[in-house]
């Protein structure tokens, strides 16, 4: 098991290099001229001078070839220094931004994941058990509609319905008030809405496939009540493919909550990335993408480890 983990960790390195090098190189050619921007910004009369431009280029190391610059960045990144944002007010270090934003996104992602699991799994099982019935169509249909609405549209709709009209929630959630606050429900729900359909459909398909297995027929034949068949045999054996989906969703929820965080002013990872993207802040974008890549890879690793626990036939060290 340990050898397997080490091997997986080592294989992450080239992947991370590919992700960051692509981001870094594309950013060099597509995100405008940072030195020109800083030259204009640092000029009180807004005039562009070539001397200032050259000086700033040199200070930033932009006179070096992109490959050397990337190597410099990577060397520092390995030591935990992801550089500095030259665009954001205060010119903070990228690591500082990530450290301040990541815990919020992680907690929000966890709540959203809980919503996905608590709502998605039972509905998926129900849809499978009652397949081709009205309930099945209702579950799949309504989750398809819900997942089709992008979060930036769903959030205001949810605000109007749950806060202003139905008054189920008393206040509009603005800002981060902790994982156990009532204000986390709506952002987490909006975040969870997108992946919900995937979980329901995967669960439905997986459960349906399990239901058609011979050992299920045997269980029924030996007189086990239906709910015991479902709870003891079907759900556990359907979990392996669902875990894969949940793992991917989990990483997406943590690193991909850009719209939700902006809408509800949550000071998370997504907000930082969005602001950096809007402002052409390549240093921050590269740093956040590196972390996003790490999150996805570690989620995949966790998923693989879970396989072994759920299905003894899977031998991870092989």
């Amino acid at each position: 098991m340990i050898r397997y983990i080490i091997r997986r960790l080592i294989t992450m390195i080239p992947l991370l290099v590919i992700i960051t090098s692509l981001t870094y190189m594309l950013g060099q050619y597509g995100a405008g001229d940072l030195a020109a921007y800083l030259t204009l910004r640092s000029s009180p009369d807004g005039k562009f001078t070539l001397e200032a431009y050259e000086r700033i280029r040199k200070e930033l190391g932009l006179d070096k070839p992109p490959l050397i610059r990337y190597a410099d960045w990577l060397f520092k990144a390995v030591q935990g220094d992801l550089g500095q944002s030259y665009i954001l007010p205060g010119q903070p270090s990228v690591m500082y931004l990530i450290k301040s934003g990541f815990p919020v996104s992680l907690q929000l992602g966890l709540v959203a994941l809980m919503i996905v699991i608590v709502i998605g799994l039972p509905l998926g099982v129900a849809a499978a058990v009652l397949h081709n019935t009205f309930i099945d169509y209702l579950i799949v249909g309504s989750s398809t509609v819900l997942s089709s609405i992008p979060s930036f549209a769903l959030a205001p709709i949810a605000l109007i319905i749950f806060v202003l009209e139905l008054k189920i929630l008393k206040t509009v959630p603005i800002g981060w008030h902790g994982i156990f606050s009532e204000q986390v429900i709506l952002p987490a729900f909006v975040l969870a809405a997108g992946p919900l359909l995937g979980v329901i459909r995967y669960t439905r398909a997986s459960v349906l496939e399990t239901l058609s297995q011979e050992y299920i027929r045997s269980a029924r034949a030996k007189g086990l009540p239906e709910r015991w068949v479902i709870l003891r045999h079907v759900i556990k054996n359907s979990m392996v493919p669902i875990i894969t989906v949940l793992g991917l969703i989990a990483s997406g929820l943590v690193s991909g909550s850009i719209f939700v965080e902006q809408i509800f002013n949550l000071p998370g990872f997504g907000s930082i990335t969005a602001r950096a993207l809007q402002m052409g802040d390549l240093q921050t974008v590269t740093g956040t993408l590196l972390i996003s890549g790490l999150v996805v890879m570690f989620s995949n690793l966790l998923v693989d480890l879970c396989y072994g626990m759920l299905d003894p036939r899977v031998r991870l060290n092989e």
Partner: protein
Amino acid sequence: MLKERILKLLIISILIITLVGVACTPQVATPAVIKETVEVEKVVKETVEVEKEKIVEQTVVVEKTVVVEKEIEAPIESEMSAVQELRILASTRTATQLDIVTWGHTSEITWLWAPLVGQDINFVPDDSGLAESWEISDDGLIYTFHLRDAKFSDGTPITANDVAWSFGYGAMMCHPDYFGKRGNYATLSRLNMVKGLKEICDGTADLEFKLFEAAPLEGVKVIDDKTIQFELTYAYKFFLEIMAQQFRVGKPENIMAGQGKEYTEDNWWATDPGTAYSGPYKLESFSPGQGYIMVPNEYWWGDAPIIQKILVTFVDDMNTALAAFRNKEYDVFNYLLYPPQPYFEMLHDPYLAPLMQSKGESFVKMHLWFTPYQPMDDVHVRRAIAMAIDRDNLIKILNGGESDGVTPTEGWFVNSIKSCMEQRKDVKQLAFDPEAAKEELALSKYGDAIFNMEINIQQFSTNDAVLVQAVQKMLQDNLGLKVVIRTEQIPDWTNPPYPVHIWPNLQGTSIDPTQDFNVVLTAMISEPSEPDKIYSLVSMNYEPEFLALMNKAIANIGSDDVCNDVGEVWKQWNERAITYVYGINPFAYLVQPWVHNYRVRAGDGNQLWMKPGIEAVWISIH
């Protein structure tokens, strides 16, 4: 089977009941509305004969708007809410914005810092600031200010030395080594007529930049503890007005304490514990990216504020902010709103429309249409084009069919800023008249060849797509011109296809009509010698008389003659060049009806420095 049918029926019934329930939920009742008394006097409707090449009869409608200030509502004990807390929704502010020189003068941050010179709702300087009186020398070069007995929020007195040091700090922040860093755009750079400041701002002074230090200034002299003198390099008509807008006073020891500290975007000297403030409120806490809290400064020299806590919550998403405001969780919605949305949506919303506190103006949408190249080098072509564009219709097209609240303007200045009014009243754009436009085009030196020439309009971004397409259609329909929209990057502006340049969104909120547009004037007098620079296209050097006029205007910036010059430039601009100023974008604050005396000044949205300001605000039971 029966069970399944019952279940189906049950679910369908629940769905129908829910839908009907949501649809029938009563709308939130519109609360009582405070109506500000505004008298609009439409005075003259006269016929003016304009003599040019022929006599043209033109109807001029002069509208005079007299705003009668609403009386301040004294707090009524029985109606006052037990909790006098003001909850404000605002877009995100960073810690550095709490600085005395990087502050946003339209935001609630101004309540932390007192200005040297106060200003009333009409931009007239008054004694509501730290200076209770002042004298101006006969030549207009020396201003002597006398300070009142005022204290910082830690109880220490505010002296002339503190004022001088604060001004020096602002000057230091203007130094090119730090300009533009950490959101610092050195508000004092607009006061560079103060002796010594210009050299610091343009980096020619023999001075090394040092953060959290004051730059020595020849033009600032401390006479005694309560007297300070400013010496100018030239008499500047708007010195007091710009001082009131741009300069606030902080405590030198607090700012200097920032030396050597490592600040991120989330903290700054102004957020350090123990910082003293000079305004009616002091900072209690600042939560990065989330908001901040202000409480009254017990040493404030004016009337004690009634509001005991101001909670500012940051949220940048307008829909979320509006939902929270509609849900009555907040008292003030402090955002700049630009048409078309959500401005017009609010304007027609029965709950929000009466709560829009100010319909002032902040942006001039401006379009310059001159180029030294053919066929725009011909004044008749430019005039014809100007007359062939229906401005009123263009405003509607650009704002999704709406024009309510968006007023056309005749010059580069927003109507609500009361500056050079005498000279401005005669400034008129060429009126929309397709027939006159055709006649004007016939006078062009290009003759019929003009109909085969391409008029190229540059579309810089997709945001301008509607604008350029609308203009293209108007010119084709009204003049039969061949108009081509250019969306490609043009590396050389001085060679064909000679695109017409459109310059949108110029901001004109300074009381000085030349300040915001100095850049435009400078571009217009420049040589089109740099083909890669956009301003080559707006050079007016092919119109020598106009060029001379603009040079004179620039030379006179700040002087008493400036209004005459500006007025003349405006008139000539409209007559000779194609300057298309098509509308003004208003902005609005939303203030709940239970908040009394919260006044926002039109034009720049300043909320504090008018009599009475924030200290008169109170909240009734709701």
